[in-house]
């Protein structure tokens, strides 16, 4: 049947292929069953025929006829010899008649008639009986001749009846044999049908079992395939859902046929909003980049793959986004264009980030260029990768030109070699070089000083990748360095810059009015004997610090420390509008400061400090008395001497502050409220000054009480 070779993986086709086989098998089964039924019917018919034959035994009937004839003959014989009754003969006659009748009538008659010659024999016998009937009736006992006549005639029947019984027996035997034969045949036939039926049924059952198994396997395969399909679909969905990109598909008319749900999260749009539209229908009215879109449209219409098509769009909230899409055309099996499938991504953040990076790079570049210092970066081959504008100007080159060149090529000669040596050191050690001073003569022969440092930039493996050099031009700074440090010791800090930037002015010697103030600790020698030297110096340091603060507060210049005292000037190096007022205010503040300081010291159980302050206002001589490297600024003149003498006068007047009338009068002039300006001072009359020809009117101030702030500091 060729079915054994069917395989499971042939799937549906194998089942389809088997259909005719099933039909054939089913037909065979039907035919076999019908034949079997038919055979059964035939068998039943044969059996009935046989049974009928036995039930109504023809042979027996014919033999009985013959026997009946013999009995009749016997009765006739006995009648002749007078031993029998005529009635006996008549009864025998009737019985024989009856036998013949039976052989003629009904089923038996019909069947006997079918046997050759028997019908003739029976009918001729019946005819003879009818013919002899009167003779039989007339028979009397003892009439042997008459009986013999009848007997003789009847006797002729005997061989013929005998033959008939033989023939009948023969016929019945033939019939039985025929029955047996046909029965055998039918049985054999039935057996064949049964075998056929059995084989067909067996095949059918086998096929059904195979089919069932295949179906089960197929079902299982189908289930597996379905499960796999589900899994893969789920995987795809997961990937799609997890991706930040969205997935889209367009049809042959380039209109969207599918767009994944991410779109909603990205732009706030629902897929329905864009389905059925072409991408260029989503173009913003303010998107004027025609070439971008026409290029895109040309690619799409040519069914070419789309790569990196970026276009702006607006989300539901009106924010402008940038979208980047990739797509691939897809075709059916006949090569017909079906549309595009692809992905899309919101690259707004990326673009912004890129823009920001570009901006910040630009800014960084600008900052680097704007810095008034040398900044450069060299690679591990010690070739420039970056040089800022400042350095380029110093070397007289373009910043872009130096990339890839060495320091020797750019700076040349000794300095270039030296610089390379330092770079090598950084490269070898991987450690930065701290700021250090370096000397360099530029292309114009000008000597310059650089304050320079180097720092390595390491890669991930820890090796030096770049070397960053930063250098400040300190040529100018070097020139004023010492002077600056000197100045800063004497001038108030806000004056330093002015003075440092205008050193030319200081070099000019000139004269103008200024306030001069001397302050001194009274009886400091006492301190030096009673206190330990460290403590004595600590008192001096604190006194100087407190006094200097007050001088600077009133824009004074701390001219010099003189042992335990100091000299300050107001209106130097340039005169101001309130120089006398500042001098008085400074003197008063100093006295107050000492009073407060003493309050603290008393609270701590320390000695009090006594102060002597003298101040005067008048013309002074100003000038630089130092050399080029060291700026020494001097205030000279009579006014300075008088101020010093006034300071000394405090001891005999027993006040802490003594000032000249010239200072008081000047302060009165400077301020609108003169009384306020000289508050705390009293006229002490005319006093002669040592070393002076004319006496002077002096003003004094009594020792002030400590302020509450001073008292409140017990510490």
């Amino acid at each position, binding site marked *: 049947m060729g079915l054994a070779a069917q395989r499971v993986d042939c799937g549906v086709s194998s089942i389809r292929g088997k259909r005719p086989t099933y039909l054939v098998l089913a037909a065979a089964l039907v035919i076999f069953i019908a034949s079997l039924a038919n055979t059964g019917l035939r068998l039943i018919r044969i059996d009935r025929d046989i*049974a009928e034959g*036995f*039930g*109504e035994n023809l042979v027996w009937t014919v033999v*009985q006829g013959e026997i*009946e004839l013999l009995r009749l003959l016997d009765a006739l014989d006995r009648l002749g010899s007078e031993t029998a009754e005529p009635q006996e003969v008549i*009864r025998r006659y*009737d*019985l024989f*008649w*009856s*036998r013949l*009748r*039976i052989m003629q*009538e*009904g*089923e*038996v008659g019909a069947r006997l008639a079918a046997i050759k010659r028997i019908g003739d024999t029976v009918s001729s016998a019946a005819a003879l009986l009818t013919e002899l009937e009167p003779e039989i009736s007339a028979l009397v006992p003892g009439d042997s001749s008459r009986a013999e006549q009848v007997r003789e005639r009847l006797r002729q029947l005997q061989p013929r009846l005998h033959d008939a019984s033989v023939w009948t027996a023969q016929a019945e035997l033939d019939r039985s044999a025929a029955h047996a034969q046909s029965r055998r045949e039918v049985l054999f036939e039935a057996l064949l049908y049964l075998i056929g039926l059995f084989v067909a049924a067996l095949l059918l059952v086998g096929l059904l079992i195979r089919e069932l198994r295949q179906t089960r396997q197929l079902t299982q395969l189908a289930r597996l395939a379905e499960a796999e399909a589900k899994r893969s679909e789920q995987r795809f969905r997961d990937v799609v859902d997890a991706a930040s990109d969205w997935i889209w598909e367009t049809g042959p008319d380039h209109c969207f046929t599918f767009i994944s749900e991410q779109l909603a999260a990205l732009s706030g749009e629902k897929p329905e909003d864009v389905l059925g539209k072409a991408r260029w229908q989503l173009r913003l009215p303010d998107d004027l980049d025609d070439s971008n879109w026409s290029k895109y449209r040309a690619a799409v219409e040519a069914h070419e793959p789309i790569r990196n098509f970026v276009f702006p769009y607006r989300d539901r909230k009106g924010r402008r986004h940038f979208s980047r899409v990739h797509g691939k055309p897809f075709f059916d099996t006949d090569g017909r264009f079906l549309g595009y499938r692809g992905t899309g991504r919101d690259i707004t953040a990326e673009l912004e980030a890129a823009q920001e990076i570009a901006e910040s790079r630009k800014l960084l570049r600008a900052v680097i260029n704007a810095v008034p210092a040398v900044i450069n970066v060299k690679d591990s081959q010690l070739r420039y990768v970056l040089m800022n504008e400042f350095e380029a100007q110093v070397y007289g080159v373009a910043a872009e030109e130096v990339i890839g060149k060495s320091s020797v090529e750019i700076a040349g000669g000794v300095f270039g070699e030296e610089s390379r040596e330092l770079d090598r050191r950084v490269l070898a050690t991987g450690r930065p070089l701290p700021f250090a001073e370096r000397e360099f003569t530029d292309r114009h022969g000008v000597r310059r000083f650089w304050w320079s440092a180097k720092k390595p930039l390491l890669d991930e493996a820890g090796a030096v990748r770049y070397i960053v050099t930063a250098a400040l031009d300190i040529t100018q700074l070097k020139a004023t360095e010492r002077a600056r440090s000197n100045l800063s010791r004497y001038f108030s800090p806000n004056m330093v810059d002015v003075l440092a930037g205008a050193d030319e002015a200081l070099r000019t010697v000139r004269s103008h009015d200024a306030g001069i103030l001397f302050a001194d600790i009274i009886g400091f020698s006492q301190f030096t004997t009673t206190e330990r030297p460290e403590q004595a110096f600590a008192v001096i340091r604190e006194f100087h610090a407190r006094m200097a603060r007050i001088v600077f507060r009133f824009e004074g210049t701390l001219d010099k420390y003189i042992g335990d005292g100091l000299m300050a000037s107001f209106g130097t190096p340039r005169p101001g509008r309130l120089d006398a007022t500042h001098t008085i205010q400074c003197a008063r503040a100093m006295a107050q400061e000492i009073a407060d300081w003493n309050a603290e010291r008393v609270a701590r159980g320390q000695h009090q400090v006594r102060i002597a302050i003298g101040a005067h206002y008048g013309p002074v001589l100003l000038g630089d008395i130092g050399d080029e490297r060291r700026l020494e600024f001097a205030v000279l003149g009579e006014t300075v001497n008088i101020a010093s003498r006034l300071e000394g006068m405090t001891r005999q007047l027993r006040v802490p502050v003594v000032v000249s009338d010239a200072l008081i009068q000047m302060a009165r002039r400077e301020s609108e409220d003169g009384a306020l300006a000289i508050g705390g001072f009293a006229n002490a009359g005319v006093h002669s000054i040592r070393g002076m020809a004319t006496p002077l009117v002096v003003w004094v101030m009594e020792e002030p009480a400590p302020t509450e702030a001073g008292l409140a500091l017990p510490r």
Partner: protein
Amino acid sequence: MRRTLAFALLLLVADPDLVRGQAQSLPQPHGEIILTVTGNIEHKNSEAGAIFDRAMLEALGTQKLRTSSDWTDGTVEFEGVPARAVMAAVGARGTTLIASALNDYQVEIPISDFENYPVLFALKMDGHELTVRDRGPIWIVYPRDDFPELRNEKVNSRWVWQLSGLTVE
């Protein structure tokens, strides 16, 4: 045996004529004797047993029965004495009959057949008296058309024609 007795008693109760008849002894035949009943019977009218001529049998009451048979063409009407009437007349005390025919045919018949079916000892067919020539004078006839279970070879063999003797056993 017991069943037969019970049946006989039932008949006694049911039929006062039979009861009266039974009280009388069997009459003597006047014509040709056509049936001789021997064996285990109560009532006899000769040394051999109970002998009947046609008139005696007809005196037991006749019935008609229409049926087909294997030996006749189509349906015929038989008329004769019910077998159970003959059994009652002779006071049969047995379960089986051996029926003999003039042609020496013998067959056993269970008497229960007569109790269960109205079996007829036919004397006439289609109004003509049966003769020896046409299976007479007595033909045992079963109502095979009314009872399908009687249509088989076994019962066919009990259709004894030319009946001449019965032996009750």
